[in-house]
C-alpha cells in the first residue's frame, strides 16, 4: 500500500515538466490533506543508561504534509539534532514510530534504512557536505551512483543551473565558496526527488547574504519543485523562510508558529531559553 502510493508520486514527479509544481502552487499554508510526507508517533530517544541517561526526545508526535517547509527551532540541548536524526533514519528511536511516505522506517534493517536514505531522503548539513575528491557534478550524482542507478546527468545539470552553478559542474568543492558548496548540497539533496529534504543548520557557517541565497533555494525547492523540507536551525531569520516553525525544548514539542516572522520566532526563543528545561517535561 505504502509502496504504491510512493510510486504514483514518483510518476507524478517524473512526468511533471521541470519547474512546474505537481501539487499545484503551494503558497504558505495550503497543506494537502493526503498522507503526510513524514509522520512521527510517540518518538522517544535517550542516550546513556541509568542515572546519567539523557532523554533527548520525550515523545514527539508530528505529521508534516507534502510540499511543506518546516523549521524546527530550539535552544542548544533541546533535542533538535536527535529529532532530525530520528526523523531522517540516521538514528533509531527507543520507542515510537517514524513513517516516511506512509512506511514505518523504524523497523527497517540498517541496510534497508541506508537504501531508503539514498533514494527517498535528501540531506543538507551545516558543513562538509561534499566529497573533496569528486567534481561538483559527481557530488550531485553521488546518491544515484551509490544506488548503482543510471546517472541522470541532464537532471544534475538542470538542478545545478537552478542553484546558479551551471558553469561550475566540473569544479571540485575546494574551488567553491561556502555558500556555493551549500547550493551544490541542495542540488544533491534534490537529485533523487526525495520524499523529504532534511537540512541541519544549512546556513550555520554562512554570512547573512549567502545564507539568504541558500534559504531562497530551499524555499524554491518547496514552491516550484514540490519538495518537502524539514530544517533544523536556531536562526530566527532562517526560520522565517518556512511555512511553520516548531519549537523544541527539553525533548518535547512545546510550541509552533505558522508563517513565522523573525521577530516572533526570536521572541519565542527568548521565552524558551528563559524557561527552565525541567518545566518542559
Amino acid at each position: 500500500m505504502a509502496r504504491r502510493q510512493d510510486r504514483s508520486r514518483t510518476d507524478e514527479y517524473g512526468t511533471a515538466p521541470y519547474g512546474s509544481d505537481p501539487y499545484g502552487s503551494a503558497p504558505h499554508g495550503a497543506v494537502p490533506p493526503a498522507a503526510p510526507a513524514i509522520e512521527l508517533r510517540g518518538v522517544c530517544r535517550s542516550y546513556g543508561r541509568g542515572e546519567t541517561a539523557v532523554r533527548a526526545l520525550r515523545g514527539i508526535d508530528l505529521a508534516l504534509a507534502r510540499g511543506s517547509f518546516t523549521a524546527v527551532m530550539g535552544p542548544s540541548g533541546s533535542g533538535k539534532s536527535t529529532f532530525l536524526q530520528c526523523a531522517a533514519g540516521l538514528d533509531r528511536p527507543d520507542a515510537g514510530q517514524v513513517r516516511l511516505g506512509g512506511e514505518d522506517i523504524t523497523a527497517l534493517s540498517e541496510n534497508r534504512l541506508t537504501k531508503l536514505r539514498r533514494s527517498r531522503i535528501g540531506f543538507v548539513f551545516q558543513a562538509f557536505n561534499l566529497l573533496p575528491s569528486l567534481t561538483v557534478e559527481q557530488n550531485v550524482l553521488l546518491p544515484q551512483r551509490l544506488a548503482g542507478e543510471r546517472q541522470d546527468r541532464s537532471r544534475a545539470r538542470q538542478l545545478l543551473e537552478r542553484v546558479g552553478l551551471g558553469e561550475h559542474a566540473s569544479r571540485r568543492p575546494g574551488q567553491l565558496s561556502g555558500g556555493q558548496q551549500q547550493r551544490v548540497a541542495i542540488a544533491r539533496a534534490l537529485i533523487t526527488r526525495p520524499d523529504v529534504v532534511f537540512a541541519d543548520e544549512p546556513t550555520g557557517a554562512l554570512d547573512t547574504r549567502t545564507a539568504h541565497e541558500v534559504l531562497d533555494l530551499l524555499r524554491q525547492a518547496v514552491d516550484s519543485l514540490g519538495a518537502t523540507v524539514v530544517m533544523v536551525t536556531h536562526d530566527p531569520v532562517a526560520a522565517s523562510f518556512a511555512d511553520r516553525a516548531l519549537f523544541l525544548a527539553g525533548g518535547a514539542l512545546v510550541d509552533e508558529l505558522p508563517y513565522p516572522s523573525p521577530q516572533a520566532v526570536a521572541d519565542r526563543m527568548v521565552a524558551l531559553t528563559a524557561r527552565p528545561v525541567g518545566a518542559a517535561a
Partner: protein
Amino acid sequence: MTNGLARSSVRFRPASFAGTLVALVLAAAVVVACGALLQTGLTASLKAERYAAAPVVVAADQSVKIRMKVGEDTETIEQATPERVRADAALVGRLAALPGVAAARPDTAFPLPATDRAPALTGRGFAALGIAGPGDTLVEGRAPGANEVVLDADTAHSAHLAPGASLTLAAPGGTASYRVSGLAAAQQAGPTAWFADATADRISGHPGRIDAIAVQPREGVSTAALAAQVRQAVGGAAETFTGDDRGTVEHPALGDARQMLMALGGTFGGYATMTAIFVVMSTVALATGQRAREFALLRAIGATPRQIRRTIAAEAMLVAPLAAALGILPGLALARWWFGQLVERGAVPAGLRLDVGPLPMLAAVLACTLAALTAGLLAARRPSRMRAAQALGEAAAEPPRPGRARTVLGLVFVAGGIAAAVVATSLDGAKAAQTALGVVMCFMLAVALLGPRLARAAAVVLGTPLRAGGAPGSLAADNTRANARRLASAITPIVLVTAFCGTLLVLQSTVRHTSGENVRAGVTADHVVGATGPGLPAGTAERAAGVRGVDTAVGVLRTGVVFKNAGRLASAPVLGVDGDPARLPKVLDLGVRSGSLADLGRAPDTIALSTTMADAFGAKVGDRVPLWLGDGTAVRPAVVAVYQRGLGVGQALLPRAAVAEHVTAGYDSQVLVADAPGADRAAVAAGLGKLAEASVTDRAGFVAQSDKDLEISGWANTVMAGVLGGFAAVSAANTLVMTVLDRRREVALLRLAGTTRGQVRGMMRWEALLVAVTGLAVGAAIAGITLVPVARGVADSTPYVPPTLALPLVAGAVLLCLAATGLPVRALLRTRPAALGTARQ
C-alpha cells in the same frame, strides 16, 4: 566492480596515499628479496665439472632423515649433515659387474696440507684417474705402488718434482714419505696426488668408505638405462645422480647452503611479510581514520557499509600493484647484496647464482595486494559499521573507546605471547631462537590491538611530569590524553623497531658475549697450536706433548652432530678430543656440573654434553643418547659428564677416535697445550713453533676458531634487524608525519589563540618525546619478555645488552620521533595561521 569512488579519491589526492605506498614499496622489496633467496635455495644447482664425463654418479645421501608421526601423518624430517656422508667401497665392485657399465671408478678426496716441497694437494686413489674424461690419464711414468705417488703434471713442474723424486706428505691417516712414480694430466680441480688404491683407502682417514662412484656406460647404453641399472643395484645404500644433480655431489656445501637460503627466505620472509601487512594496516587505518568525515557523509547520504568497505579496500588495492612494481628493483638489489655477502662469508659456495625468477615478483605483488586488501578491509570496519548518525558525531571527535572485541583479542595475544615465551623456556637454543620472532609477533599484534589503551595509560603516567613543563608541556599532555588513538598509531611502529631490533641484536650479542665468556673461562690452555692449512697433520698432539716443558697437549677435532630436538632435527658443533682424558681439565675448564670428563674415552662410545644439549635430550650422566655423527652415522654413546660452558667451545665432547672416521677431513684443527709447572712460557711457545705448518698463539687463539654457523646466523640476525628495523623506522616516520600534517587546523587555532611558534614546536616536541619514550619502553618490555627464555635456551644466561647497542637504538628512536615531528611542524608553521584556519582538510 567498484563504483569508482576509490579511483577518484586516489587520483584526486595521491599525496594522502603516499604513506600507504611507501609502506607497500618496502613490503614488496622485502618480499622480493626473501623470495629470491628462497627460490635460489629451492632451485640452486651447480654444474658438474669433475663428473661432467661420468653420466651417472653414485654417492650417499648428504642428510639425516627420520620419519616422525605428526598427528595422523608420518612426516619425513631431514637435516643436512655437518660432514660428508660416504658410501661403502664395496659398491664399486657391484656396479662394475652391471651389464651396462663400462667403468665404475671410486672417488675419494682428502686434503693434504702444504709442505716445504709441495703445495697443498688433494689426495685421491689412483682408480679415480680417468673420471674427468679420456684425457685424464698418466702422461709419464707408471701407476703408483705402495709408498709411491703420482702428481699432476702442472704441480710437479712448478714444484720441480720429477718421477723418482721423493716427498713427505701428511694425510689424515698418517704422514709418510712417497716416491713420485709418474705424472698425470693437469687437473681442473687443482693440485692432485694419486696414491695406490690400498694406500689411499688407508690414509684417507675413513677406510672402506668412499665419497662417490663415477659410472661410465658401455657403448650404446643411454644415461637413463644406466641410471636405472645403477639405481637398482645400489638400492637404498646410496643415491644415484645424473645431469646437474651431479653438481651436488661435487659440492657437498650446496645442501647446507640451500637449507640456509630456504630458512632465511622462508622464515624471515614470512615474518617480514607479516610485518609488512602489519605496517600497511596501521598506515591504512590511520589514513582512513583521518577521512572519517568523508565516510560519515557517504553513510548519511546512502552508502551501505558494504560500499564503504569496498571503497576503502579498493583504494588500498589501487595503490598495491604500483607499490609492488616500485619495490621490485630495490628488492632485487637487496637480494643481490645479501646473497653476495653470504658467498663472501662462505655460507654459500661461490659459483652459485642468485635465481631471480618471476615468482618472487609475483609473490610480492600478491603479498602487497593481500596486505593492502586486508588492511583496507580491517580499517574500513569502523567507518562502515557506524550508524550514520554516530558517524557524523564521531567524525569530529575521537571515537569513545576501543571495542570490547578488540580488547579481548588484544589480551588473547598478550596471553599467547607470554605462553609462547614460557614454552620457549623449556626449549633448547635453536628452537627457542626460532620462537623468538613468533613471540615478538604475538606481542606486536597485542600492541596494535591494545594501542589506544596503552597510549592512554602512557599519557596519564607521563602526563604528570609533562604538566610541569610549562604551557607547551601541559598542552602536549592534554593532546595525548585526548587523542589516544592518534598517539597509538605513532607508538606502534616505534614499539616495532625496538622490539624487533632489540630481540634480534640482543640475542646475537648475548650469544657472542656468552661464547666469549665461555671461551675465556673455559679454555685454560697456555698455548693454542693452530693450523695454517686444512688442519694439523696427524700426530701433532703427540709431538707437541714431546716438546720440552709441555705438560699436556690435547688435539681438538671440530665436527658436528645431528640430534633430535623438540620434534625436529638440529645440528650442533662438537669437539673430538684425544690424549689422556684425565688431563683434559688442564686445558679445558668447562664447568662440569655432574660426572667427570676423565671418563671420556674410557670406552669409545662416551660423550660429555653441555647443559644445553643435556636439556635437549633430557639426559643425565649414565644415560645413552641417540645422535648422528658428522657423516650421519647413528650412535648411542653414554653420557659421562654434563658441563656448563658449551656455547663457543662445543656443545659436546667425544673421544677423537669416535669421530675421526666420520668427518670430511680428519685433521685436528687445534692442539691445546698446558705448560708443565715452572716451564718457561716463551721457550715452550718457541718449541711448539718448530712443529711443521703450525701457528702458536695464546688461548685467545681459540676464539678465532669459534663456531662459523653461529657467526653466520648472527650476521643474518643483524641484517634481519636492519631490514625489519629500517622498515619499521620508515613506517614510524611515515605515521608521525601523517599525524602531524593532519593537525593543520589545530595548529592554526593555537596560533590564532596566541600560541607562539616556539610554543607550538615545544608542544609537538614533548608529544614526540612521549611517543618515543612509550614506544621504547613497551618495545624493550617485549624484547625482554621474549629474550629471557631464549637467551636461557641458547646461551644459558640472561640477555646481555651491550651499551654500544642500547644507546644508539634509544638515540635513534628519539631522533626519529623528533625529526619526523619537527619537520612537518615547521612546514605547518610556515603558513600564516589565517590561511591555515580556512584550509580544508
